[in-house]
């Protein structure tokens, strides 16, 4: 690593390292939000300083406002109809495409994650690989969950009766604070796999992997607005999302188990009876996941229709 400058940025690090004579000044990236398929700055014009685990400046990240949160909800609502109406096969291919794009930018994410979480390069690589694999895992779930979570019901009468899982709607996600990338992917992928759209509040301390993920999502055929990524203070943005009347559910994972924030968000969420996924303590994000995060944001719709009663006269056909 170059010692020639104490200012570094994850994108620029490798090229810095190659330029031992520091002839070429690297190009920094302006980290921006990902909302409605675009990369806006915070409407507030605010940024905050993001540092690596050793306290070195990495970048300035947008410090999102409550207005940014509301804009993101509008984008997510707009995207909900088309995304929930897309075929499960189509959603599966898009989630798989995200894994493909991520794999192609593996090195960049390894650097981002290593900086963000203070991991060695090999451990950061393992985290990124696990995140790629997680997208693949959820990509395969899109067209299977309905058969696991729904099905025909043998009612005692001449009726056809079918239960089908449907996405809850717009889901606000407070992403894990410590696992800024694998944790993020692990909470994000199951939400959108089933057709929900989402507004994610990224890890406050380590928001850069989330913002870089936005760049991957934007180039993976994922329709704009399906995932909206905000960075900043969870305590500032999340209450707006929890109280928002056009948000249907909230995942409180990143608010932390047993915290006042988690409790206050749950209280605010009760106003329009959002589905709340409470934070659990100490989740191991490298462990295999079950279907709980898929089903937490699904509704069950049951449709009845009379079948008539052929053969009532006794014919055995």
């Amino acid at each position, binding site marked *: 690593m170059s010692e020639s400058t104490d200012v570094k940025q994850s994108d620029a690090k490798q090229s810095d390292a190659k330029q031992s004579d520091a002839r070429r000044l690297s190009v920094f990236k302006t980290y921006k939000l990902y909302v409605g398929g675009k990369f806006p700055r915070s409407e507030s014009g605010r940024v905050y300083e993001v540092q690596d685990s050793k306290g070195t400046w990495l970048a300035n990240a947008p410090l999102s406002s409550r207005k940014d949160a509301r804009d993101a909800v509008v984008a997510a609502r707009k995207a909900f109809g088309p995304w929930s109406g897309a075929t499960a096969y189509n959603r599966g291919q898009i989630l798989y495409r995200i894994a493909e794009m991520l794999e192609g930018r593996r090195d960049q994410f390894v650097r981002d994650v290593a900086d963000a979480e203070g991991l060695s390069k090999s451990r950061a690589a393992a985290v990124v690989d696990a995140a790629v694999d997680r997208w693949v895992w959820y990509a395969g779930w899109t067209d299977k969950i309905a058969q696991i979570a729904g099905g025909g019901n043998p009612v005692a*009468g001449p009726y056809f009766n079918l239960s089908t899982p449907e996405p809850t709607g717009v889901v606000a996600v407070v992403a894990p604070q410590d696992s800024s990338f694998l944790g993020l992917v692990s909470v994000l992928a199951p939400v959108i796999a089933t057709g929900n759209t989402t507004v994610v509040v990224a890890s406050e301390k380590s928001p850069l992997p989330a913002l870089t993920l936005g760049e991957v999502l934007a180039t993976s055929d994922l329709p704009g607005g399906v995932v909206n990524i905000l960075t900043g203070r969870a305590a500032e943005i999340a209450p707006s999302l929890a109280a928002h009347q056009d948000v249907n559910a909230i995942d409180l994972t990143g608010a932390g188990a047993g915290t006042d924030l988690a409790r206050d968000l749950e209280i605010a969420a009760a106003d329009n*009876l959002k589905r709340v996924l409470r934070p659990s303590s100490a989740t191991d994000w490298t462990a295999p996941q079950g279907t709980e995060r898929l089903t937490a944001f699904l509704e069950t719709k049951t449709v*009845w*229709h009379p079948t008539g009663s052929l053969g009532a006269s006794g014919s055995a056909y």
Partner: protein
Amino acid sequence: MTFEYAPAPESRAVVDIAPSYGLFIDGEFVEATDGKVFKTVSPSTEEVLSEVALAGQEDVDRAVRAARRAFQKWSALPGSERAKYLFRIARIIQERSRELAVLETLDNGKPIKETRDADLPLVAAHFFYYAGWADKLDHAGYGANPRPLGVAGQVIPWNFPLLMLAWKIAPALATGNTVVLKPAETTPLSALFFADICRQAGLPRGVVNIIPGYGDTGAALVGHPDVNKVAFTGSTAVGKGIARSVAGTNKKVTLELGGKGANIVFDDAPIDQAVEGIVTGIFFNQGQVCCAGSRLLVQESIQDELLDALKRRLSTLRLGDPLDKNTDIGAINSAEQLARIKAVADTGEAEGAERWSAPCELPSSGYWFAPTLFTNVTQAHTVARDEIFGPVLSVLSFRTPDEAVAKANNTQYGLSAGIWTEKGSRILAVANKLRAGVVWANTFNKFDPTSPFGGYKESGYGREGGRHGLEAYLDV
């Protein structure tokens, strides 16, 4: 055309209501700690049926402690043994179903033909269904050996007293939980009779505890720190309060709340069948049904024809003695509920909607409201937005399927909807777009223990019934 009917009352002799009942805690009927009691009346006559102990905070605590004590043994029983207790209960309910039907009709005010042909058969079926799950939980899709939560605090409404008890208690016991159940203050009797059925079935003491009371008893139960699971059926306002009160705890919650179901009739629907479906949708149980089809959305081209047929049909409905086997419309459950219905109906008129009520004579005592519909209703009208929970239908029209779906979904609720059309692809397309937990196509208000029931949006969360209904009572 008028039909003359001779009275055909079901006999009251099959049910023996005691002058007073205690709380059912730890397998015994006991007085309330502070000795408080309240009266339960027959809504069709205002006759006092019995005096019931009123559970206070200390009684809630006693009941929860009894349920906690019973939990260890009950949850450790082999599932096959728990199953047999539930099968016993199902069978005893079948044996005693006429008694319970008459009791329910007396305490609730709904017609005997409903308690006899709908409530009671469904109650027995629900216990029979969940009995069979008790030793098959490994196969329910929640992993191997799913564990119960512990003590379930359950609060149920007055519209289907015993059926709501069954929806709450059957899955809770099948999965190995113990329960404390608070029946509604206007309909406590069938739950107390159920306590006697538990005795007959030999159910271990403390597994089921019944604590009648008002809203504050329910709040004390929901708020009790040693309750692991809260299940509530009732109003959306109370449901929101519960959601707030459990915030920050580990209590698992399911809420079955209000609705404003759209019943959509397309121009190709068979009119006579649709009329029957509309009547079932909103006048079943006097409209005091959370999944009632309380908004009729009719395609403009058939509106006049349909409304004429509907009014003709409503004019033949027989309102009166709920114990009479010919009665279609029984009493409203309480004076308070009747006052609420009247107030919203008056608001409907004041806001400019046109009111029509079926010509029928209301009995001089008891709580009664004639089947009523409102036309010239817009989406902004109170009668189109608020859950009335009474025999009041609001009629709106539409021109295209898209407009029908948009209007149907234009509500804070999302519990039920109906679709009437002969065109299969339209049924599937519309059903797909409706944001409602139960969609009845060319039928309405059908229920079955195997069929998951529950709402979208502010109609609550969680499902009751079917394999889905197990999740609410398992630590998964």
